[in-house]
């Protein structure tokens, strides 16, 4: 466990020792700000059945931020080490493959959480200015962040897998982006299919990240969705571990 924590600290430190971590957080914060300013302008004075916070997650902004930040965070985890030559040093150290994979995944997920944390600040600012406590229901907000964390864990695991496949950060980012967009497009596709009429429709409905986030943002936690994210994250981490391990027999 200590080994994983040490590796995790090393991973997380990697983001903040250079400008990259700050630039990513700052860029994401700007996008949050831009989306809220746009939404507030449109919704000001118009009665709504759902709080502005719930509506934010249904906008294109949220998905743009998620789809872009995930590759930016994960592209370096394995690919950078391979291209700079520190990968060999790491893998010859007395650490297991799983420890490396879990530490790198943990580091990316921790940074992903840090990137999304300022969103909470934005919500408090909106609550402060509107003066309506109902705008920010703490339990619903907790449910929403739990959902973001679950979705983030899947996207981070996919990113780690993509980064483990190559030594080029650009290719890793592209692969990660492709996987993320594929999942998003499948969610969009589920709109056009009936889950009760075809198995394909039922499958797409089950994996629809947009539908899942709609539930989380309403304050609903559904075990089907939790199980989907945990199992799919586990699958991509397993695949990452296999890719890392493959250096021994390739």
């Amino acid at each position, binding site marked *: 466990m200590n080994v994983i924590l040490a590796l995790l600290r090393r991973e997380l430190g990697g983001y903040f*020792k*250079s*400008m990259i971590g*700050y*630039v990513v*957080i*700052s860029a994401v914060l700007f996008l949050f*700000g*831009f989306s*809220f*300013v746009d939404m*507030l*302008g449109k*919704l000001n*004075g*118009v*009665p*709504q*059945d*759902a709080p*502005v916070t719930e509506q934010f997650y*249904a906008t294109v902004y949220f998905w743009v931020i998620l789809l872009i930040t995930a590759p930016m965070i994960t592209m370096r985890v394995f690919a950078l080490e*391979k291209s700079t030559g520190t990968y060999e040093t790491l893998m010859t150290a007395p650490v297991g493959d799983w420890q490396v994979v879990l530490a790198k995944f943990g580091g990316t997920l921790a940074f992903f959480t840090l990137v999304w944390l*300022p969103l909470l*600040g*934005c919500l408090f*600012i909106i609550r402060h*200015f*509107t003066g309506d406590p109902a*705008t920010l*229901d703490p*339990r*619903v907000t*907790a*449910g929403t962040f739990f959902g973001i964390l679950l979705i983030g864990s899947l996207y981070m695991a996919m990113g780690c897998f993509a980064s483990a*496949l190559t*030594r080029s950060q650009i290719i890793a980012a592209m692969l990660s982006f492709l996987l993320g967009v594929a999942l998003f497009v499948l969610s969009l596709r589920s*709109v*056009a299919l*009936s*889950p*009760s*009429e075809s198995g394909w429709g039922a499958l797409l409905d*089950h994996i629809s990240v947009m539908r899942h986030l*709609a539930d989380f943002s*309403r*304050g*609903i936690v*559904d*075990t*089907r969705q939790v199980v989907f994210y945990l*199992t799919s994250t586990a*699958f991509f981490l*397993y695949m990452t571990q*296999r*890719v890392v391990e*493959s*250096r021994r*027999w*390739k």
Partner: protein
Amino acid sequence: MDEFPSHSFPSGRRFGIAVHVAVAAGLLLAILIMVNYLAARHPIRKDLTSGDRFVLSPLTLQILQNLTNQVRVTVLFDSEAALFSHVDAMLQGYRSQSPKITLDVVDYSLAPGRAIQIRDRYNLGRDDKDLVIFESGKETRFVRSAELSVYDADINSMLQGGSRQVRRSAFRGEALFTSAIVTVSQAIRPRVCYLLGHGEHDPRSSDQNGYRKFIDLLAQRNVTVEPLTLGSEREALPSDCELLVIAGANSPLEANTLQKLGSFLDQGGRLLALMNVESLGTTTGLEDFLARWGIAVRPSVVADRQQTTGGSDVLVGEFGAHPVVNPLAHGHHKVQLLLPRVVGKIPEKFMPADPPKVEHLLFTSDAGQTKSKIRDGTAYYDVRVDIQGQRIPMAAAAEKGGLAGVAANRGATRLVVVGDSFCFGNQLIESASNRDFAGLAVNWLLDRQQFLAIGPKAIHEYTLRLTPAQLTKMRWLFLAVLPGSILLLGFIVWLRRRA
């Protein structure tokens, strides 16, 4: 991809390891799919909202757990429409509670092809949207968005000509959805009796004043409509009759018919009585009968110079505060009546003991006028008895709680009385929002006591009221201060590390 220039393994061995990895990955995938399958079969949904917005009532849970027939629920809604979020979240909860429920959510703006298929399957019109369809076997039931809301209106302000703002205060989806599931899955078809023999509109006629379209509207609500005569001693109202319709009776009802109607209502029956101008010179007996239920049908017709298309009709845009008309008021809809009679509340002092709760439904504008002098089939204003320059009621609804031990199986007695019967005829039912008015009246009348126990869920309306100064301040905070401060922090760290 990755390259490691190691060739310590022969290619056969490498192939074997690759197969092993592929099989292991496949097995893991199969296990994970099975876990997901089990999770999908036994879902648990936890509602974290502080008001338990999406928690289902014990009655709904009991009905869902005992469901034996497959029920297909189709939500045909614009995902940006008001209430979609509530409808979707609530029905997802229904689905998670019973494997017998299948749910299709179709956003007609995002998936127009699927919307067309659904409209074709259920014989819906192109304008039919924002509704939920429940289907089991051959039974279908529609719940429209107009029925889903409970509104708060500042009636006093409206009566004084002030604000007309109507606010959505609660969501009554659960009562309607549960009711619809029970109706389609248990094939319960409420029986509606249609009284004949006193000059009523012909329920089979396709003429402009026939009631064929109205009967079709009832059939769409899974209702069995049965013609009924009560004149002879032997004829009686069926014990399972839930609603009696009297549409345009213009000759006197027999004493024993009125007696049977009285005992039907005393036992929690429901009555839709549609009066008209043709019975103005006749005493049908309904006038006195309805007075016992707190509703006065006056011997005069109503005109409204400000709200008419041709003089003889009234285009009603003023509504009372009642579930039957609240959706119409909120949507600023109109109802067109033809020479309606005055239908209002009996004054308090003339009310019977243990009076029912009576509410006005439709009003004229402030330019309303009554006409009670009939000459050559035309109504004239009589300065001695008629009134003008006032809001005049033209429809009313009454409700009275059921008598203990007597009305246990029916619940509360309900009546809707409208001063015009032509408004639901084949021609006028398509005018203005007459069809919606008919549907809302029938729905309210057919509401059963068991589902009234499922209360509506309060809706919080969120309105951002930001001043331009606040918006500017937020713009600066969001776009400059917050991202800039993080960037500055990063720059400081970078400078320190460089030093």
